[in-house]
């Protein structure tokens, strides 16, 4: 609400801004660049998923647009939820956080119970029947952002930064879902949680001493996991393959090698959409989900794949801008957590297709096939918009 209008009202006036100005006001509210980036990425994702799945479906005699339609429906639901969240008041959302958090934890627990289903070795799905299934860990990301932001972002009077108690509470709130996800096991998503929490703790302004202590503890836990043999053999294999991709070209290195071949064969301008031979031949496993970037690499070339990265960078940059401009620490922490989430997943996902990160199953935000991830990604954008919205409202 503009200051001029508030002042006018205070003076008891009944002047209404002209219609045109009110339209401009309304249009100014959301961050249109952010929306634009998310929309561009989602639409590109739809095209790439279509290209990746069409030949295989035709081969099997199925409906060539089966994956496309499912992803389209998910994107539709995601956009609706995104707009809903974007238009809501952060303070009202805050009221639902405890409930959201508990529901997310319950969802993760149900996954581990006999009600959960195993896909690709991870027990991370709840199948509702009728072709509907979802991944609670994706929605847990939202709950984590909102939940952990509460102790870190709501400072008591006179406090300039979160205290030890708040920090510990935040860590406990983050650890509970992370451990449940680690039990699925889904190392990739657990690492996303770690990255989000780290980002949120960083921008919350806790003392450098505590940051240092946390970093040291993180290294310690990693070392412990290593020495206790908690790293599973296949995970180790993937790390080794990263160092020497030709070590096992048909086993653990197959995905990595085929992904690089697909991307590399795109060259500067790509083979053209729907014209990628590696894509049509289904050489890259999981290409429509975790390896969707290889389709972009082969068919759109450096121009297209690079553009995706640039748009992603613009989106993240917008998110950081919103974090910086947030009038409340709560909003800052939420925005930073969301940015860390999307940035980490982008880096790990694209990095693994390019052979600079081990094969860890995390989806590429907005582009990978997968209803839960698509919806949660778009809702994350809505969350950023909600933080952005409070800027204009002038929250106390």
């Amino acid at each position, binding site marked *: 609400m503009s200051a001029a209008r508030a002042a006018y009202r205070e003076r008891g006036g009944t002047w209404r801004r002209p219609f045109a100005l009110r339209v401009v006001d309304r249009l100014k509210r959301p961050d249109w660049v952010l929306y634009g980036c998310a929309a561009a990425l989602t639409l590109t994702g739809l095209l790439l998923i279509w290209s990746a799945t069409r*030949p295989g479906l035709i*081969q099997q005699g199925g409906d060539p647009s089966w994956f496309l339609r499912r992803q389209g429906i998910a994107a539709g639901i995601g956009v609706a939820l995104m707009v809903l969240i974007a238009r809501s008041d952060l303070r009202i959302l805050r009221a639902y956080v405890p409930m959201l958090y508990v529901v997310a934890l319950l969802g993760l627990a149900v996954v581990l119970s006999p009600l959960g289903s195993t896909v690709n070795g991870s027990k991370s799905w709840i199948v509702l029947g009728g072709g509907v299934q979802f991944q609670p860990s994706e929605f847990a990301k939202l709950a984590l952002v909102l939940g952990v932001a509460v102790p870190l972002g709501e400072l008591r009077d006179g406090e*300039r*930064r979160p205290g030890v108690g708040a920090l510990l509470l935040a860590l406990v709130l983050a650890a509970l879902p992370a451990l449940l996800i680690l039990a699925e096991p889904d190392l990739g998503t657990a690492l996303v949680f770690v990255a989000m929490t780290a*980002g949120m703790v*960083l*921008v*919350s*302004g806790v003392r450098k001493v505590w940051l240092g202590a946390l970093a040291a503890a993180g290294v310690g836990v990693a070392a412990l996991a290593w020495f206790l043999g908690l790293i599973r053999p296949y995970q180790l294999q993937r790390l080794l393959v990263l160092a020497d991709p030709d070590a096992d070209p048909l086993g653990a290195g197959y995905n990595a090698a*085929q992904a*690089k*071949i*697909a*991307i*590399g*064969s*795109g*060259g*500067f301008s790509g083979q053209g959409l729907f014209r990628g*031979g*590696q894509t*049509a*031949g*289904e*050489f890259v496993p999981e290409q429509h989900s975790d390896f969707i970037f290889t389709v972009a*690499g*082969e068919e759109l*070339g*450096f121009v297209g*794949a*690079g553009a995706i*990265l*640039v748009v*992603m*960078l613009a989106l*993240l*940059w917008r998110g*950081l801008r919103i*974090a*910086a401009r947030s009038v409340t*620490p709560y909003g*800052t922490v939420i925005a*930073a957590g969301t*940015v*860390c989430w999307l*940035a980490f997943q*982008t*880096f790990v996902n*694209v*990095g693994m297709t*390019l*052979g*600079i990160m081990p094969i860890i199953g995390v989806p590429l935000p907005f582009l990978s096939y997968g209803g839960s991830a698509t919806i949660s990604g778009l809702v994350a954008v809505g969350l950023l918009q909600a933080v952005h919205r409070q800027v204009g409202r002038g929250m106390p």
Partner: protein
Amino acid sequence: MNRRGAPRARLAVLHVVVVALLLTLLGRLWQVQIMSGAAYEEAAVETRVRQIALPALRGQILDREGRPLVANRSLPVVSVDHMALRDQPDGGRAVLTRLAGVLGQSYADLAAKTRLCTREVPRPCWPGSPYEPIPVTADVDVRTAFQIMERAREFPGVSTGLQPIRSYPYGTAAAQVLGYLQPAPREEAAPKDATGVTMVGRAGLEAVYERDLAGTPGRRLVAVDSAGRVGRQLRQTDPVPGNDLVTSIDADVQQLAEQALGRATRRAGDGGAAVVMEARTGRVVALAGAPTYDPNVWTGGITTAEYERLFGAEGGRPLLARAVAGEWAPGSTWKVVSASAAINAGYSTTAWYDCPGSYRVGARDFRNYRGLDLGPMDIRKALVVSCDTIFYRFAEELWRRDGGLSPVARPADVMQRTARAFGFGEPTGIDLPGEAAGRVPGRAWKKARAEGAATEAERREAATWWPGDAANFSIGQGDVLVTPVQLARAYAAIANGGTLFSPRVAQRVQRDGEVVREIEPQVVGRLPVSAQVLAYIRSALADVTRVGTAEEAFKGFPRAKLAVAGKTGTAEVAGRRDTSWFASFAPAASPEYVVVVMVSQGGKGGDVAAPVAREIWAGMYGLEDPR
């Protein structure tokens, strides 16, 4: 908002981290796509494009009248994909068991046919590429083929299709001459030819004229996906069919010779060979071997039992082309060589020599056949009645002339030289693989063989060319070995006035009836025998069937219509029954053909081999009904 100073700095850190991460990805993307994009593009083509060889239709092998001895036909063939079987959870056991049931074969046979040949795996096994479909049976009836096609789900990796295969309109005729096809070993096929069966000739004419018959396979480049499913076709070059090979084989004579030989070897002996050759050209009209086999066993995969029969010693080695690859002592058929040598060395053709019951050579008595004393006779009669002692005498005297046990510096070795001039001791160069050289033993040969003896005394003993060796040599015994084809071309040379040929089975390569290339028997030498002496020998051989050792065999033969000249041979083999020979040519006055028959372990030449030759002659000239 001063309290937000710390978070602002921290946010700046986050900005830097995010930008750094994304720039890292962009940089790496540049590296992969732009800097090494070409290499990856190549790798992509390699994983994506497969070459499929389109087999060229192989040329036919025709007889001299243009009748096909080997033709092509299409058969419903059931094939098994080794790779698909391997991908089954049980390694394809269940599929093969089901298939065995449908085809009426045993699982063990199917499993043996579809395993890959390696050094450790005994045959039968699949010598081709693992990516090629392995034919497990040919000649399945159409209903069975349909049954398998309809139940495709139960038979993953099993396919049915039409495959061009060799057919043999004359059945077993000339099986060993024609040879057979086998899939080219993996090493020979280019590694990129992952699919497509390449069959190559592995024996006989199929092997020798491989390049003429094979044609040029075409290539089809196709895009494949990760599961190996074939997508769109990229490029294709059509195959060029192979040329036809016209042989000088006469299918009728070939069958006639095989039947006569087969009957004889079933009665006596463990195998045999018959050669029919044009006396004036060196062209082969028939080349029979016994036992023989049905070349159709090669199509549709070969069972263990069939393989044992074909390659095992117990089956009588039916794949062996005995006429070319087998060596036997020639016995008295060799006396044409000894007689020529003796006459060249100065023994008169008109003089009379004694033919006693035995002749003493060195410390041993060398006996005539059955020890009969036949009285004095000339060389001509010695050939007709096959006197041995006269030739012992020639051999011993010639041996003495060369210095005996302390040979002169350059011994004449007339017998050996003559034998070599008749083309013995070296391959004839016939256009069939695996030819044996035979053996003309002499001083040098004994010396070479003696190397490696335990003691010096033994070595000296073994290295000496004893007078007994010379005597044995003169009647085609001892260490002399010949192939039936060698003997046939030597008799052809006698018959045609002295021209020694390198025989040929093929006479031309043709394409759609037009001659591509003529194949002529090469003249490789002339007998060192004068025309008069050759005529003398011919007239002697003409009497063999009339009043000589083959008189009994040719009793009642219409001599007025066809006078057959020939020579019997009965070669003793230690520990085995005699090798029976008959070498002949006709018409005696102006010879057209040579017929040589050999029956291993058959017995006397006049009793076993000569009647076979008589049947062949009678059949060729249409003289009498086969007995």
